[in-house]
């Protein structure tokens, strides 16, 4: 059970406070309700580029990191298709430094041309390092537009192409900040050994006078339900053939999200999972295989991916894979298997909840979904799952017309 208090400042900023008396550290986590899905198709990669700029100094403070390091702390952030999340971890007694820094960059950024130019380059190098200079690195750049035709999930957080990042202008940057980085579009969580009254007065002190702004309305084109099987093959200079099956799944707020999560575990989380046993250990079609969900807030994907053993044809894998999926549709899973999946979920959760930062991030995410207490209810949803829930979900999900398949065909180099 993660306990918390919640209050709202007059400018619309939601504040969550999680008390932990056992640690000398504090976490300040700030979630902004903006991600790559909020970009326009002509200017992708922007939410993430902007995250980099948030470290380039704010209106009253030339450098974000140095004062935090001086206070014994450190900071980082991540951007996804859904959200942008910033966090500071520091000794609890210096909490005010983090609040000073976070509030100033919520108030306004410095917007220096140098910072924009350098971070454009840094992000381009990140693009190369993660997506272009890795075997199979560009798979998600290809898979997203195959699985999504309308919804902005069709581009990756890093952006559709390097050119979009190169073309970002100062005007774009200012506009983005003004629209999305307002208190009413943010959720702040403070965790550590404090009193609620202290947190109330400190947040009022540092964040209270920031103009509230208007929470931008989000109107995203909904992805129509898929009713055709999609397949694409790309040829790459890689050592082995690889496959990426993507099935559309329910959105984060739907209970079907949890059923799908457990289904993916049953298929390919561990070395006792169905696909691992059947396709790797028994029929030796693959060298590796995994199943997982993308965890997206809007309709996401259940993924089954892996690599073929040498000499195995994609068709053989396809046949064997669908036959395993059919089993999940035709026969409810046994209690014993369900129990095995549940205890792993429970164990993983106990470990995750140990971390102060993890708790703070999760509280913010669930608050965004509607109620921070969702973090405590999630556990009950998992434990109440019955075999028939999984079977119904499997019947609904594992249809050819709900599937997009990306194949990476290995072409040998000319040595």
């Amino acid at each position: 059970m993660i306990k918390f208090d919640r209050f709202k400042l007059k400018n619309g900023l939601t504040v969550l406070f999680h008390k932990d008396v056992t640690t000398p550290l504090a976490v300040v986590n700030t979630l902004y309700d903006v991600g790559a899905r909020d970009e326009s198709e002509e200017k992708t990669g922007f939410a993430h580029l902007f995250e980099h700029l948030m470290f380039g100094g704010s209106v009253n403070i030339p450098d974000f990191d140095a004062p935090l390091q001086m206070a014994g702390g450190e900071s980082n952030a991540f951007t996804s298709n859904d959200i942008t999340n910033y966090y500071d971890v520091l000794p609890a007694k210096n909490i005010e430094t983090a609040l000073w820094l976070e509030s100033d960059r919520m108030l306004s950024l410095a917007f220096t041309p140098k910072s924009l130019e350098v971070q454009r380059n840094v992000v381009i190098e990140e693009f190369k390092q993660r997506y272009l200079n890795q075997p199979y690195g560009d798979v998600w750049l290809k898979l997203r537009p195959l699985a999504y035709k309308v919804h902005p999930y069709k581009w990756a957080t890093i952006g559709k192409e390097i050119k979009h990042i190169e073309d970002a202008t100062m005007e774009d940057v200012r506009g983005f900040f003004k629209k999305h980085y307002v208190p009413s579009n943010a959720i702040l969580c403070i965790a550590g050994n404090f009193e609620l009254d202290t947190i109330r007065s400190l947040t009022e002190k540092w964040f209270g006078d920031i103009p509230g702004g208007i929470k931008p309305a989000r109107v995203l084109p909904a992805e129509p339900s898929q009713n055709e099987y999609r397949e694409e093959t790309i040829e790459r200079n890689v050592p082995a053939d690889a496959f990426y099956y993507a099935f559309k799944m329910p959105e984060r707020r739907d209970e079907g999200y949890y059923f799908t999560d457990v289904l993916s575990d049953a298929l390919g989380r561990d070395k006792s999972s169905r696909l691992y046993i059947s396709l790797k250990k028994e029929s030796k079609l693959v060298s590796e295989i995994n199943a997982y969900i993308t965890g997206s807030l809007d309709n996401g994907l259940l993924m089954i991916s892996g690599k073929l053993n040498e000499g195995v044809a994609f068709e053989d894998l396809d046949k064997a894979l669908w036959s395993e999926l059919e089993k999940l549709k035709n026969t409810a899973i046994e209690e014993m298997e369900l129990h095995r999946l549940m205890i792993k979920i429970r164990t993983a959760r106990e470990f995750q909840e140990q971390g102060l930062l993890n708790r703070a991030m999760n509280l913010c995410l669930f608050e965004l979904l509607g109620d921070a207490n969702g973090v405590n209810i999630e556990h009950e949803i998992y434990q109440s799952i019955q075999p028939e829930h999984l079977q119904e979900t499997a019947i609904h999900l594992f249809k050819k017309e709900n599937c997009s398949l990306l194949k990476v065909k290995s072409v040998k180099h000319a040595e």
Partner: protein
Amino acid sequence: MLNRTTTPSLQQIDKIDFVKPLVFDIAGTTKLFHMKEVPNDTSRLDLYFDAGTARGEKGIASFVNGLLLSGTDTKTSVEINGEIDALGGFFESGISSENAVLSVYALKENLLPILKILVDAIEHLAFQTHEVEEIINDRKQKFKVNMEKVSFLAQREFQSRLFNDSLYGRITDEKDFDLIEIENLKKFHVEHYLQGLQKVVIIGDLPDVEIHSTIELVKKWTVTKNGTYEKDLQNLQGEFHVDKSGAVQSALRIGRILFNKTHEDYHDFIFLNTILGDYFGSRLMSNIREDKGYTYGIGSMLAELHETGYFLIATEVGKDVREATIVEIQKELTRLQEELIENEEIELVRNYLLGQLLKSADGPYSMADLYLSVEPYGLELDFYNQAIESLNLITPKRIQELAKKYLNWEDFTIVSAG
């Protein structure tokens, strides 16, 4: 009116409480360390074996490590993994040049039952032909994939030049995978696992009776003859390049043999290393990422081995700025040798390191790991009090002196790939 231009007043970290785990003798030199103060149901078990990659014939150690749960005469690998999963256990096996570590993460009531499964699996490991063939096949494919990564190519070349002709410098090639023989695997398993247990760690609120059961279960594996570790190593100096056609980035690995925690310059060198490349505001990050935009990240570290250690700078940069990056790295090293550091930078790094130490001591898992990183060197937790003392005493002159002593370009192995 709120003053937003000056930093709120800071408080120094005056004291950190370090907690030592309980120590139990298993047999010979093998001990069990128990960190009991865990306020929830989680637990972790680590088993350390004298089974690192420097032991045995080239490549053997890593295959035995990967095969530990591959089945006995009465149980298949699927059955063993299924039993561990049914208890909610997460199993990991790791290997370095000097040892192999098996870890289990589980709820505390399941830790001992999982250990029993593990002990049976390892004790009666059968090395079935189909399992051995499967892992060789998988590893070959992984190896080929890795050979497409500039970071892997650079790391491999660096390791071979850094450790030169010592056992730590042995690197595997694809052809080595075909030379693996089951008899050699079996021999290694007996010598380095069944007679190779060096250390056991339990973190979790387990009753003493379970600690004693653990000792009884693994006692038979106590290491009989501790192998020796490489020392007095000398890296091969100079520049080395691995070509990779089609790469859009180059990986750089630059470093030299240095020392570990037992050396008198250790604490102060850590300070110097932090300034140079071990935090977000470091000189390498400030210059090469935040000023030039050549890279997504660059860092430096001191990696420790049992009898020695090495210093390393690592990054991936745009192919067209590889030479420019090397020049800048060199400049930063020279600057540390020629210019005294301002007090403000010293104070910042001091506070940052104190904060990091506070974080490293936060919670039973971190605390246990902190202890485990001094224990192999015969040191105690007082080492960290000395670290704090050194932090408070360090001077610009001392840092310059260490830079002159240890950061000379001509002493380095410089590797690039891409």
